[in-house]
């Protein structure tokens, strides 16, 4: 049973560029949440997707956008990258309507903006 898969593992981008991160949820899960984890800090909620729509959004600017596909996989897009966007981006999946066992996380994408 595959867990949450994120790609790429590492990424280096230049300030001002755009980036797309990808996430495949755990088998049986239909909801994807994205988190940003800055170095030495806990993860912060970016947004959650369910039924191909953004269900809830955290305190992040519109430069952060996402998408969910019919197969429940998801993308996180960040435009006009800033140095402060350098972080570990974690994807977490869950199942709506089931018991809440917490989210299943992937191993993240380490984004470095130079």
């Amino acid at each position, binding site marked *: 049973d595959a867990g949450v898969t994120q790609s790429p593992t590492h990424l280096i981008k230049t300030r001002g560029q755009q980036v797309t991160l990808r996430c495949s949820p755990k088998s049986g899960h239909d909801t994807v949440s994205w988190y940003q984890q800055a170095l030495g800090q806990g*993860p912060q909620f970016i947004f959650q997707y369910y039924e191909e729509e953004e269900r809830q959004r955290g305190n992040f600017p519109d430069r952060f956008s996402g998408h969910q596909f019919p197969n429940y996989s998801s993308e996180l897009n960040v435009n006009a990258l800033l140095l402060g966007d350098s972080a570990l981006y974690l994807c977490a999946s869950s199942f709506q309507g089931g018991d809440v066992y*917490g989210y*299943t996380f992937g191993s993240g994408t380490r984004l470095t903006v130079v």
Partner: protein
Amino acid sequence: AQTVTQSQPEMSVQEAETVTLSCTYDTSENNYYLFWYKQPPSRQMILVIRQEAYKQQNATENRFSVNFQKAAKSFSLKISDSQLGDTAMYFCAFLSYNNNDMRFGAGTRLTVKP
């Protein structure tokens, strides 16, 4: 807004001994979940244990147990018979029934010494 506080940035324990990690949270909600996640150097967040706020009985998972004090808004994690593989960052997290934004503390870095 819900906040989660972990007041111990770093802790260490000798192998086979017991250690307790502290967590406090602030919320006006009555129905919520609390979690402890482990993040080893592999970066993946791994669920250690969860507690539902309506349950008075403290959760236990093998060597891991919690002390949940709802009135005090405290949720500590006890690790018994510590093993070298327990070395990791530990995050306390809060999730309201009515919110999809899982809130994390800043983490405690635990080192188990041989």
